[in-house]
Structures are given as structure tokens and as C-alpha cells.
């Protein structure tokens, strides 16, 4: 299945150190199918123009293609407002500035978790410095959010920010329950879905969150583009984040008025080619049965995890039924960096380090882990090569 799919991805004809590429760094970024790469080349080769207020043909095509990306986002994820950003990080910063700054005041509580990616911690710490909101971190115990602690933290909370699926552990949090609990106390909810949308189809309205942030590059789309989906209620509470370009209605020396739709939050020339590329990725992925791939990949990851444990590694991922196929592990003596370079020497790409989640590392009591993360095009043979690669490392190092 994965093997068959590899044909769609030009990069898999690449060799690394004389070996066929085994790419297991998907939680960092995924590879791109030819249709996505071609959509962007095609745009630059035949429709390139700046968008909006467009009268000439190219500008019309560019606008149509860019807005098609938004249309696809809205229909795929069932939402009314999709602001296009440069990625998850900008999406969360946008929420913190455009919503947080205007709807929170000193002393208001914002609930986060210890499992968050830096991109869902630092913007709120910066907000706390500016307007003195109180940050409450829900602890992680044995790879899971402490739901009792969440219950307590929610008291009087105005905003809850939770990672849907952890990029370090693959843990999928019970976001439905968390959102229900948060809504009960009247809090707005932001979900960091960077690692979620690649693995499952989310119905934004049904989920009931106010903000959903994710990046195209983690779901076979291009770099430099992402989105913040916003509920109608939250949208109506937001003020502009960045100024300039087409986000205005009128500009005079005395002051400006803003557009009322998503453009209000998209200052400057947008990511046009990236919009074409992401639209192609969204179309491509709509033809994929994510659910069946999910169980296939989870099975592979579990197999790998068992094998790693048997070889003396500590595995931090729990790989519960809804978790993503991410295996984070350490070896008792081999430094993660040495480990990863010796795997790379065999054509195997994994990530090491703190994965932009230092608080979680602190909780796990490690400086970093080695992370193998699987995606659509990975297959059993990748897992076999990976394990054989591990064995060679162990042989050499112990």
C-alpha cells in the first residue's frame, strides 16, 4: 500500500548514502506527491500574478486558485472561516494577538498542557507578559493528560489551548471531552491540530472548538502555508493582527477600516503559489482513506515499538488505538544524535532532540528522544529496514 503510493512521490527515487531513502521524519514534515509539486510549477509557469482586485486574466486565475484553497479547507473541515497563515505557529500567534489581546484581561486564566509544542506555549507566555493573563498547565502523567487536573484548571478559565495529537508521543488527546468540559465553563478553545489533520478528518463544527490551527507541510502540502479555522462567535470577536495590503476596506491618513471576511487577517500579498499547492494536496488527500491507513500505520508502529523495547530501548509512545504512528524512544547509553547519524548512514531519516516540546522532555526526564514517525507512504518494508538499521547500530555501539 505504502509502497505503491511511493511512486507518487518523486523523492523516493532518491538514494541517501547509497541506500534508498526510508523517511521516518513525517511528524517534522511530510513528503510531497508529484501533483502538489506540479501544481506550483504550473502556477508559476502559466498563471502567476498577484491576486484580488484582479482585472486581467492571470490575476483572475491566480485569485481563483488561491481562493479555491480556502474553499477546499472550508468544505473539507466544515467551517465558515478559514484564515490562511504561514503555518500552525503563525495561526496560534494570530489567535493570541487578534483574539487573545482583545478578549482577555489581566488575571484571566488560560489553560495549556505540558504536552504542548512550543508554538502553543510561547505565544501565550508572550501574551502573559503583555497583559498578565494567568497560564495554567495541565500535567501529563504516563503519556496522558491528567483529566482531573484539567477539571480543576478549568475553573474560571477563559481560553483552553490543547494539542490534539502530540508530535512527540503521537498521543491523541480526548479533545471532544476537553472541548465539552471547556464549553461548560464558557471558555473558548483552541486546538493545535498540526499533527491531527494529517491523520484524521476533522469536522470543525461538530468538534465545537473555536480555533483549529494546522500546517500544509505536515499533510503533503507545501511549506509556508497553513490555516486557522475559526468559529463564527470567535471570528466576530477578533481585531486585525497585521496591517497592510488587501486587509483594508478604506485607508485615510486619519485611520483605516477593515474587510469583514477572512481577508481582514491576511495582510499583504498572500501565499499564492502555496495556495495552489495546498489545494492540490487537499484534493489528493481527499482521495485517501485516512482511517484505513491509520490502522495500518499504527500496527506498523506498534510492531516497531515492541521490537525496540525488546532490544533494550525505552519507548515513550503509548500507541493507543487513536494515537498517531509515532515512536519516540531512547537508548540507555547511545546518544540520540549518534544513533540518528548511524541510521542516516543507512538511508534512514529520523528526528532527534526535544522536538520543540521541552516541557514534555523535562516531564519525561530526558534531554531528547529519537523519533520515528510514519505516514501514508511508509510500509512494512520501511519498518524492517529501520529495525535492521537499529540492529546494525546496536552491534556497532555495544
Amino acid at each position, binding site marked *: 500500500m505504502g509502497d505503491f503510493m511511493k511512486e507518487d512521490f518523486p523523492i523516493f527515487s532518491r538514494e541517501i548514502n547509497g541506500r534508498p531513502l526510508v523517511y521516518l521524519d513525517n511528524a517534522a514534515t511530510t513528503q510531497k506527491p508529484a501533483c502538489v509539486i506540479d501544481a506550483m510549477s504550473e502556477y508559476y509557469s502559466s498563471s502567476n500574478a498577484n491576486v484580488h482586485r*484582479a482585472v486581467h486574466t492571470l490575476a483572475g486565475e491566480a*485569485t481563483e486558485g488561491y481562493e479555491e484553497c480556502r474553499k477546499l479547507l472550508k468544505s473539507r473541515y466544515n467551517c465558515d472561516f478559514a484564515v490562511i497563515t504561514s503555518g500552525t505557529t503563525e495561526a496560534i500567534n494570530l489567535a493570541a494577538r487578534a483574539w487573545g489581546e482583545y478578549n482577555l484581561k489581566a488575571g484571566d486564566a488560560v489553560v495549556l498542557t505540558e504536552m504542548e509544542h512550543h508554538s502553543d506555549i510561547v505565544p501565550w507566555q508572550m501574551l502573559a507578559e503583555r497583559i498578565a493573563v494567568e497560564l495554567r498547565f495541565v500535567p501529563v502523567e504516563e503519556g496522558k493528560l491528567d483529566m482531573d487536573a484539567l477539571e480543576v484548571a478549568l475553573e474560571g478559565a477563559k481560553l483552553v489551548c490543547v494539542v490534539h495529537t502530540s508530535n512527540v508521543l503521537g498521543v491523541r488527546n480526548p479533545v471532544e471531552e476537553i472541548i465539552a468540559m471547556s464549553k461548560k465553563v464558557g471558555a473558548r478553545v483552541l486546538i493545535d491540530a498540526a499533527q491531527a489533520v494529517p491523520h484524521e478528518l476533522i469536522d470543525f463544527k461538530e468538534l465545537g472548538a473555536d480555533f483549529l490551527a494546522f500546517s500544509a507541510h505536515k499533510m503533503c502540502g507545501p511549506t509556508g502555508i497553513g490555516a486557522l479555522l475559526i468559529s463564527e462567535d470567535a471570528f466576530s470577536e477578533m481585531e486585525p493582527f497585521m496591517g497592510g495590503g488587501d486587509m483594508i476596506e478604506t485607508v485615510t491618513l486619519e485611520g483605516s477600516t477593515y474587510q469583514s471576511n477572512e481577508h481582514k487577517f491576511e495582510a499583504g500579498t498572500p501565499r499564492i503559489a502555496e495556495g495552489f499547492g495546498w489545494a492540490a494536496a487537499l484534493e489528493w488527500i481527499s482521495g485517501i482513506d485516512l482511517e484505513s491507513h491509520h490502522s495500518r500505520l499504527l500496527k506498523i508502529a506498534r510492531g516497531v515499538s515492541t521490537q525496540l523495547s525488546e532490544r533494550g530501548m525505552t519507548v515513550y509512545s503509548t500507541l493507543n488505538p487513536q494515537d498517531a504512528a509515532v515512536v519516540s524512544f531512547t537508548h540507555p547509553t547511545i546518544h540520540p544524535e549518534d544513533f540518528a547519524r548511524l541510521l542516516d548512514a543507512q538511508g534512514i531519516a529520523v528526528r532527534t532532540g526535544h522536538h520543540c516540546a521541552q516541557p514534555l522532555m523535562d516531564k519525561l526526564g530526558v534531554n531528547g528522544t529519537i523519533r520515528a514517525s510514519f505516514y501514508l507512504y511508509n510500509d512494512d518494508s520501511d519498518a524492517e529496514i529501520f529495525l535492521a538499521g537499529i540492529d546494525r547500530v546496536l552491534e556497532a555501539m555495544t
Partner: protein
Amino acid sequence: MTWPASIQEIIEEFQEIEDQFERLEVLMDFSSEVDELPVEDWNESNLVRGCQSIAHIEVEIRDETVWMKAAADAKMVQGLQGILSIAVNGSPPQSVLELTPAFAEEAGILVSLTPSRSNGFRTMFDMVQNRVKEAIK
């Protein structure tokens, strides 16, 4: 899709044209088909929103038929209003509500009906239907 005779005629007229420049010239000719809304009647409520040029449309039901008055500063936009006028003026509200804007694409008047490429046509078409809906409520 079959269209009312008046529209069918327009479709055929446009389909015969091969050169885009000529097509636009013919489009502009339709600007004279508009029952012009005098400038002094231009106001916020009859302003067409989301249109790049200034355009106004007012719709009323006279003797149980729809009648629109319109005006635009760009001649092509007024041309589109003219075509729209032919399509709706004198028709019963129900048949106006049954119209779809697809004929503009079919005739090649517009390359596409997406908001960014329809030169305000889609917006104006929707506005007319909405006003008719409100009027007969």
C-alpha cells in the same frame, strides 16, 4: 439547461463572437438596456457590495412582475446589468427565482462565475434574487 427565450438569444449572440475584444464591446452595448437608476437615488441600500467599480441595483415588483433599475460607473458592469435586466424585467418573481447565473458562463460572457472572476455579475445576480425574495415575502 434551457433558458428563457430572451436569454437564449443573448447566449447565441455571444457564442457567435470569437474575439474577446468584440465580446466585451457587445457586452458594453448592453449597458443601454438598463433602466438607469439616477445618481441621486444611489445609496447604501442599493449599492452592490464586493464589486470593484461602483454599481447600484434597485428591484421592485410592479404588477406582479419584477423590474430592476441599475447603474454602474464601469460600462462593462452596466452591460452585465443590462443583460440581467433583460433576463428579469417583466418576468414573474417565481421565474426570476428559478434562474441560475450559469448562462453567463455558457455564453462565454464570463470565463468563470467565481466571485473573483465574474466582474460582479455573480454578486449582482444574487442581489436581484435576494431582493425579489424579500419583496414577495
